[in-house]
């Protein structure tokens, strides 16, 4: 089987459209994971057991079940109770919620890494709980975990092909339909692989920049 450069070239625009969709799902999903993960981490530290426990159960449940199952659940079950999103939005929410369970662990480690003396100093100065979190704890916890958080962007991006299953037209599903239309699979799948690789490398490079820029920790 020869590599047909002509067919490859013709498929590039549609594949790029697909990759753009994958990128959109990643960006949106990652924002959800960043915010929701922090919410999970904070709720799991609540002093109220009736807040802490249910959140812990939900987080463990999501983390211990496959992403694909969750995507199907969101895509097929939610509309039956009247909640309906576009496939792309559903996919981004699915990715975001799933990865929030990972980022919440990262945040938790970052928060635990703040020395107890910082909490004690905040108490000695009578800072409110809210102010202690926003001015003392999180500004020290978050920079510590920027590298770990940045790595999840790439992991999440590499999970976007799973959105094929819920009809999102991202890179992989475009490649598959190109193959079905032309009976040539070599070119689209090779190209889509290269595109994933290229974008993942760019993300890794951006992650290193973010890390250098914001990942400084002024340890005492």
């Amino acid at each position, binding site marked *: 089987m020869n590599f047909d450069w002509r067919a490859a070239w013709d498929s590039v625009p549609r594949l790029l459209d697909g990759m753009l969709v994958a990128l959109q799902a990643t960006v949106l999903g990652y924002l959800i994971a960043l915010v929701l993960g922090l919410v999970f981490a904070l709720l799991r530290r609540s002093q109220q057991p009736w807040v802490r426990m249910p959140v812990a159960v939900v987080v463990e449940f999501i983390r211990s079940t496959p992403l694909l199952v969750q995507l199907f659940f969101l895509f097929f079950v939610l509309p039956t109770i009247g909640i309906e999103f576009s496939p792309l939005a559903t996919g981004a929410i699915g990715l975001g919620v799933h990865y929030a369970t990972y980022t919440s662990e990262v945040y938790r480690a970052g928060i635990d890494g703040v020395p107890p003396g910082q909490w004690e100093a905040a108490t*000695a*100065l*009578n800072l409110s709980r809210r102010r202690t979190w926003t001015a003392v704890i999180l500004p020290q916890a978050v920079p510590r975990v920027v590298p770990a958080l940045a790595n999840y962007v790439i992991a999440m991006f590499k999970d976007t092909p799973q959105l094929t299953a819920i009809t999102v037209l991202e890179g992989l599903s475009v490649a598959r339909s190109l193959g079905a239309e032309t009976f040539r699979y070599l070119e689209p799948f090779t190209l889509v692989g290269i595109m994933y690789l290229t974008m993942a490398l760019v993300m890794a490079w951006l992650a290193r920049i973010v890390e250098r820029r914001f990942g400084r920790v002024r340890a005492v």
Partner: protein
Amino acid sequence: MTETTSASSAPASSGGHEGNLITFDGVGKRFGDNVVLDNLSFGVRPGERVTLIGPSGSGKTTILRMLMTLTRPDSGTIQVGDDYLYHEERTGNLVPASEQHIRRVRRRITMVFQHFNLFPNMRVLRNVTEAPVHVLGLSKEEAEQRARELLDMVGLGEKLTAYPTQLSGGQQQRVAIARALAMRPDVLLLDEVTSALDPELAAGVLDVLRDIARTSDVTMLCVTHAMRFARDISHRVLMFDSGRIIEDAPPGEMFDAPRHERTRGFLQSVINET
């Protein structure tokens, strides 16, 4: 602020007495099988400077931490002025205090720590203004004015924009003292504030504290192994052993003519060490 009692004032007797700023009454604390404080009662008068000495593990630091609400007592009561720290009076009964109540009573107290515990994410000036702005409700200008004066006083008026990590340990501790005083506390707790410092740097910190003792009437509770300093600033010295006060005397008596055998042994060992 409160009137300073003279250095020669008689030690406050134990438990719930009128005129005490701090009153421990039957306070107990154990960690597992280890009894840290055993039914402890004592009082501190307004303006009094009290040093707590004794072997490590004898409960001194626990007392400071209880006052700062960092460690909860298992039993007994602690009063700050007329207010209970861990209890509230409701219809004549003592009930566990709400977070709100604890915050209100705690406002009169602050603490300087062995390891400084400055906020590494904030510059020196903001370390000192953070709580005055957000807890006392001072304007940014007022708080900065106050912070500048205090940082000048501790000799760090030039370091306002430095981060804590850029300072020596002694400098960090002096910032921590300024940060504590910016709250205008009635009670200043000093928990082994020079133990983590080289002797040279410790001397600078102790000089600052001597100044504060001389020029202010803030009540001090001080856990330290710097006996020379304790003698200079204290009105009273309490000797602890196994969670109990075994001797309570003015520094002259405590250091020159300790009555208790255990005190003599302890002081001897501290002198040999330094």
